[in-house]
């Protein structure tokens, strides 16, 4: 078995990225506490702005190369207190909105340095599903950095 020790890996031109066969690294991830506005852990995240209840702007440190060419994954936790209580109404389902415009026009389009996302109830016959804060939201994204 051989071991290659290096601090930095670049292509032979001295600056271009090296190809990692069968690997595609995630370029950003975050564990976000929307109740306490706390970044619990992250990669390539400068800050998160609490825009309003359940709506956040995630600021990326090293920009993506394009506005849209990336995959974004989100999952949330159906509690606002670290697991002691399930959110009332959670049986309707909860969702994260990561791009586009919602019914209140509060979600901005993606940029190369931001992902605005929201946490909301699912809709029902009597409710559109309002935004609300949750204690854990996980957001990861994969694509090309600038």
């Amino acid at each position: 078995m051989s071991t290659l020790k290096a601090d930095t890996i670049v292509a032979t031109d001295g600056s271009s990225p090296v190809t990692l066969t069968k690997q595609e690294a995630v370029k950003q991830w975050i564990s976000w506490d929307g109740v306490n506005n706390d970044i619990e852990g992250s990669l390539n995240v400068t800050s998160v702005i609490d825009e309003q209840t359940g709506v956040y702007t995630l600021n990326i440190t090293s920009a993506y190369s394009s506005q849209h060419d990336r995959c974004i994954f989100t999952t949330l936790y159906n509690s606002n207190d670290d697991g002691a209580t399930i959110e009332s109404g959670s049986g309707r389902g909860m969702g994260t909105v990561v791009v586009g415009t919602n019914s209140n026009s509060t979600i901005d389009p993606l940029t190369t340095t931001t992902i605005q996302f929201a946490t909301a109830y699912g809709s029902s016959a009597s409710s559109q599903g309002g935004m609300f804060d949750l204690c854990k939201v996980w957001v990861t994204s994969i694509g090309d950095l600038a």
Partner: protein
Amino acid sequence: MSTVITDNLTGKTAAGNVTITSEGGSATMQLQQGLAKAWFTFNYTAAQDSLNISSVTDEATGHCFGNFSSSMGNDDFAHPAMTGAFRTRYEGTGPDATTSRTNTIETYNSGGSSADDAIINCTVHGDLA
């Protein structure tokens, strides 16, 4: 084009820190931070394929969680999940994620009842111990 053939990559200064350059060449990032530290696909019978998962525990109907082979360094990792036919959320009253397991993934049907799904996919991003 040159190719380095090796079995291991280790940081020279710090073993757990290897820097790579972005696609556009204007940024660098730590290689280790960008790699998924665990993932699994589960069908409520067995973990069909996985990385760094010793087992997937079937807690109850529509409730499961992954157990890590190599522990995470803390419990603040991100682990988004996606399922096949049903909706997904992380169960709020179950134990939080620890360094040795994920949160409980709950799948439920359109009526809001917990239900087993044939496809559970989960990835884990954060620091290994």
